[in-house]
């Protein structure tokens, strides 16, 4: 028998390639004297040395698996140590970590043992016990097991805050190559079922307070980047379709980390594509918060994102006709399109300009990155005549103001 520490090491190690760490959007209140509540915006309790957030106890119930997906550490042909938690062990770990304020809750996934229903039923048993017997109101992110029956999925949705299924490979062809036992359809079907149930129950809640909460923090998925030969366009168009078709809250992009010497995959010890991953997240942000359409960022003639400049700057350089934007008169959505101006600064600008025309020094204090923005705006103290620079010249000037191009550092969003 493995000791609990060894099990935890094995099953945390196997779960860490799932990058989702969100813990916001749950809305469970602590009524009476139970344990825990959920925080509207989520909390990152710690950060690992790779700079990723630790918000949830992210573990597999077991890393035994009947599937042999080439990109996965737990694939059945991989010669690794296997382990499985008992229900009791997962419950105790979750409760005791939570009571010490280590975590916001539990992220529970699993290898598939026996079959989908058998696995889903075990996962369900754990979350049910946490919610009912332990009166636990913390956050629970639960994997939906593709192929599990709708009854099990429906019941799990009553206890989980978020559910997710990873698409992993952005194209069907990629999936066929690396995980021939799986298909996009097997992922889309449960995503669709849960999405429709969420919509239906939200509707019913408008009429009756007694309708229970169902997956209140919505669904998410993950796409692996760089395991197969997809373009950025393939990845983002797939993400965009999933956001729209299944009402997803988040799509995560996970730069593939070589874990296998399989000839279908990038070589062991090759560097994970971190910069590319970051550019994808930036684009995802532009689509969700900045009013961009995916077709404005990528199209058939332009299937890869520029690695040298961020996608917002890239768009601005391709569209000189949209600039300069007059900070003191332009609509909010155009202010938001200026490279170097984020959502926070854009909001402050439209408030502040009611009190008087804004100058460069005020923009700088508000938080605008003028090294980028200055080429795209006019404000109260802009020179009445300024030489018009070509997109290429602007690009060169901005790159000159940025620190030397170091991929490992480029991990923040704007």
């Amino acid at each position, binding site marked *: 028998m493995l000791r*609990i*520490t060894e099990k*935890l*090491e094995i099953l*945390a*190690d196997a779960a*860490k*390639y799932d990058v989702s760490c969100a813990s916001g959007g749950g809305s469970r*209140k*602590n009524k*009476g*004297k*139970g*344990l*825990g*509540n959920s*925080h509207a915006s989520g*909390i*990152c*309790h*710690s*950060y*690992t*040395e*790779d*700079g*990723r*957030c*630790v918000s949830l*106890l*992210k573990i597999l119930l077991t890393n035994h698996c009947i599937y042999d997906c080439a990109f996965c550490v737990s694939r059945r042909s991989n010669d690794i140590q296997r382990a499985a938690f008992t229900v009791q062990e997962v419950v105790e*770990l979750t409760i*005791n*970590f939570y*009571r*010490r*304020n*280590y975590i916001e809750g539990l992220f529970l996934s699993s290898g598939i043992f026996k079959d989908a229903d058998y696995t889903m039923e075990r996962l369900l048993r754990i979350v049910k016990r946490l919610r009912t017997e332990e009166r636990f109101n913390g956050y629970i992110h639960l994997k939906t097991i593709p192929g599990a029956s709708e009854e099990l999925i429906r019941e799990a949705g009553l206890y989980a805050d978020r559910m997710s299924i990873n698409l992993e490979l952005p194209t069907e062809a990629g999936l066929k190559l690396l995980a021939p036992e799986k298909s996009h359809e097997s992922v889309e079907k449960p995503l669709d079922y849960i999405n429709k149930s969420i919509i239906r129950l939200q509707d019913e809640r408008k009429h009756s307070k007694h309708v229970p909460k169902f997956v209140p923090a919505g669904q998410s998925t993950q796409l692996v980047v760089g395991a197969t030969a997809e373009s950025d366009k393939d990845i983002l168009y797939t993400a965009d379709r999933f956001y729209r078709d299944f009402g997803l809250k988040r799509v995560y992009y996970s*730069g593939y*980390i*070589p874990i296998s010497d399989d000839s279908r995959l990038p070589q062991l010890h090759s*560097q*994970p594509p*971190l910069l590319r991953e970051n550019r994808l997240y930036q684009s995802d942000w532009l689509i969700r918060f900045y009013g961009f359409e995916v077709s404005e960022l990528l199209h058939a003639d332009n299937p890869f994102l520029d690695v040298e400049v961020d996608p917002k700057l890239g768009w601005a350089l391709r569209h000189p006709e949209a600039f300069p934007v007059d900070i003191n008169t332009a609509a909010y959505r155009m202010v938001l399109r200026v490279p170097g101006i984020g959502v926070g600064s854009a909001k*402050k*600008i439209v*408030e*502040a*300009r*009611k*009190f008087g025309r*804004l*100058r460069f020094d*005020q923009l700088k*204090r*508000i938080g605008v990155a003028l090294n980028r923005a200055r080429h795209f705006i006019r404000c109260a103290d802009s020179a009445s005549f300024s030489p018009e620079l070509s997109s290429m010249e602007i690009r060169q000037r901005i790159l000159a103001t940025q620190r030397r191009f170091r991929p*490992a*550092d480029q*991990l*923040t969003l704007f």
Partner: protein
Amino acid sequence: METYVFDGSLVGLLSAIFTRYERRAAGVGVIAQAAHQQALLGTHLSIRSDEGQATRVWRGLLDRVGADGCSRLYAACLSEDAGAYQSLFNVVHDVFDRGGEVLSDFGNTDVLAVSQWARKVHREKHRMEAFVRFQRLADGLYFSSVEPDFNVLPLIRKHFTDRYADQRWLIHDGKRRYGLYYDGVSTSEVTLGFDGHTQPGSGKSIPVELLAEDEPLYQQLWKRYFQRANIPARKNMKLHIRHIPKRYWRHLTEKW
């Protein structure tokens, strides 16, 4: 120029504002008692914190800037920063003179400063909600010591009271020498009996015989988990340290 010396609290600051109106003074500077040095030039007036005066000013502010505006002003005050106090003093004067809208005049240096201080304090509040690490003591009390950059205990009180409603807990601010204690029913501010010389240490310094029996096991499990959640191929210490600056490490179980 007149300088008002107050005790550094919100009540003190509001009393100072009240005094300014009473005296119809202009161009007033404010300074907290702790930072005050006698040698400063000009006239000094010592402000007595007066709940009644403070309440009147606060009600006036609530009418003009609403609850959101007021909580921003309160947060900025908890920064305990000399510049923030002065900006707050000026902004509040402006609010009474020109109306509550001035709070969104981000082109104004003082308004922007107050908003930025409020943001910094809120970030610290959020950090404390994240970085508090409880240790279960033998008597069942969950204990945590912290040293936040700003005086954020009043802001995290509700969060922890709501969350840990079925366990007794104590969060102690070692810098400011006071704590929040929840006894299973309600939360109150407490001062502990540390003598004047010994600085309360990090949680690591608690002798093991004072800990609950299962405490070392869970600390061990948490440390192992933290190690295993890391992906070495993605190592990025710069980002790691940006997210958890080193000054917080001594109170984080996973960093001991």
